[in-house]
C-alpha cells in the first residue's frame, strides 16, 4: 500500500482503519450511501477537495432527485435531472450539514473524499438545525461527542414512515424518553432542536 495514501472503506455504518498501514496527514476514502425512494436525511461525511468535489451535482452525479437544504426557516430545493441541476443552486455540501435527498428510486451512491480527523466542530444553531458528524464515524451520541449543556431533541428520519423519531436529551439527566440514546450511522444527517446555539465538538485521532 502506498504509505502516503490510506484508502479507508466505509461499509454500512462502520469505519475501519488499517492498523498496519502508515497514515499520512490526508486520509482518503469512500463511503457507500444507500438511498431509498422518497426522502432520506443524509450528510456528506468526506471532504472532497477536488474542484467542485462537494457540489450537489458531483455528489448526485447521474441522479434525478431533489436536494432539500434547511435555510433557517424553510427548505431550499435543488432539482437534478440525470445529474444536471435544472432548478435551484448547485451548492457545496460540506461535512457537518444534514440535508434531505428526495430520490426517485432506490440507489447506492459512492462518495469520495478526505476523512476529517483531529478536533472538528459543528455549529448547532438555536431552534432547528440539520447536522451530522464531521468525522466519518458511526456511534452513539455520546461516542460522537454530542452532549450539550442544555436540553435538545435529536430527531432521526425514518424513510419508511416518512416521519421523525425524537430522542430527547434533558440537561443534567441525559437521554430520557422511551427511545433512549440515539445512534448515528456514517453519512446520516439528523435534526437538532435546541433553545440556544452551541458547538458540537468531537476529537478523533486514528491509530497509526
Amino acid at each position, binding site marked *: 500500500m502506498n504509505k502516503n495514501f490510506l484508502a479507508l472503506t466505509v461499509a454500512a455504518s462502520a469505519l475501519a482503519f488499517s492498523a498496519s498501514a502508515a497514515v499520512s496527514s490526508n486520509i482518503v476514502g469512500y463511503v457507500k450511501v444507500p438511498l431509498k425512494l*422518497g*426522502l432520506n436525511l443524509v450528510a456528506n461525511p468526506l471532504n472532497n477537495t477536488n474542484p467542485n468535489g462537494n457540489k450537489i451535482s458531483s455528489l448526485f452525479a447521474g441522479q*434525478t*432527485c*431533489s436536494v*432539500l437544504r*434547511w435555510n433557517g426557516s*424553510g*427548505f431550499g*430545493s435543488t*432539482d437534478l*435531472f*440525470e445529474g444536471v441541476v*435544472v*432548478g435551484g443552486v448547485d451548492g457545496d455540501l460540506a461535512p457537518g450539514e444534514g440535508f*434531505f435527498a*428526495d*430520490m*426517485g428510486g432506490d440507489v447506492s451512491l459512492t462518495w469520495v473524499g478526505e476523512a476529517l480527523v483531529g478536533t472538528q466542530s459543528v455549529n448547532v444553531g*438555536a*431552534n*432547528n438545525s440539520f447536522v451530522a458528524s464531521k468525522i466519518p464515524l458511526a456511534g452513539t451520541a455520546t461516542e460522537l461527542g454530542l452532549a450539550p449543556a*442544555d*436540553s435538545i*431533541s435529536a*430527531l432521526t*428520519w425514518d424513510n419508511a414512515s*416518512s*416521519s*421523525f*423519531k*425524537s430522542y*430527547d436529551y*434533558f*440537561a443534567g*439527566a441525559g437521554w*430520557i*424518553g*422511551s*427511545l433512549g440514546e440515539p445512534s448515528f450511522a456514517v453519512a446520516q444527517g439528523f*435534526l437538532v*432542536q435546541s*433553545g440556544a446555539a452551541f458547538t458540537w465538538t468531537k476529537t478523533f485521532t486514528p491509530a497509526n
Partner: protein
Amino acid sequence: MNKFAIIAAIALSGVSSYAQGVINGFNAFKPTGSLVNAIVNDVVNDVGVTSALLAAVGRVEVLALDGTVLSSVKDGSGNALVAPGIFSLGTMTIPGSTVGQPASVLLRAWDSSTGSTYANALESASITVTFPTVGGATAPSNFVLASNFTGLTLQIIPEPSTMALAAIGVAGLFFVARRKN
C-alpha cells in the same frame, strides 16, 4: 417521460409528506426570554411555592382541538412524565392543520394519584398551546421553542360533594338573608 414531469413528481412527493403540521412533544426547553424550562408544575402549596410535578404521578396528553388524542397513549390514562415536570411524547401530526399556518393543540396534565384520568383527577390543568406557524413532517415545531407554551401549573379541582356543600351553604345564606328582609 418528460423530464419536467419527473421533477414535478419528485417535488410533489416531498410536498405531500409535510402538508400537515407536525410538532415535537418535548418540553425541557426555556421559552424565549425565560431562564427556566417550560415544565408542568404541581399545585401551589400553602405558602405559595410550586415545584415540578413528580414523574411518578404526573400524566399528560396532547389532543387536537376536536378532542382527538394525539399523544401515544389513547385510553385516557395519559403519558407518564420522564422526569419531574418533563414530558417526552415524540412527534405528533395535527389533523387538519397546514404547514406554515397557525395550529393549536390542547395539553392536559394531572396528578394520577388523585385520579387515573384527566376527567376524574382532583389535581389537573389544561392549556391551549398555539404554534403561530406550524412546521411540517420534515421540520416539526418544537413544543416550547415554536409555541406560546411557557409551562403549566396544576389546580385543585373541588370534589362534587364539596361543590354541593358549598352550593347548599350559599343557598342557606340567601334564605337567611331573605327572611331577615
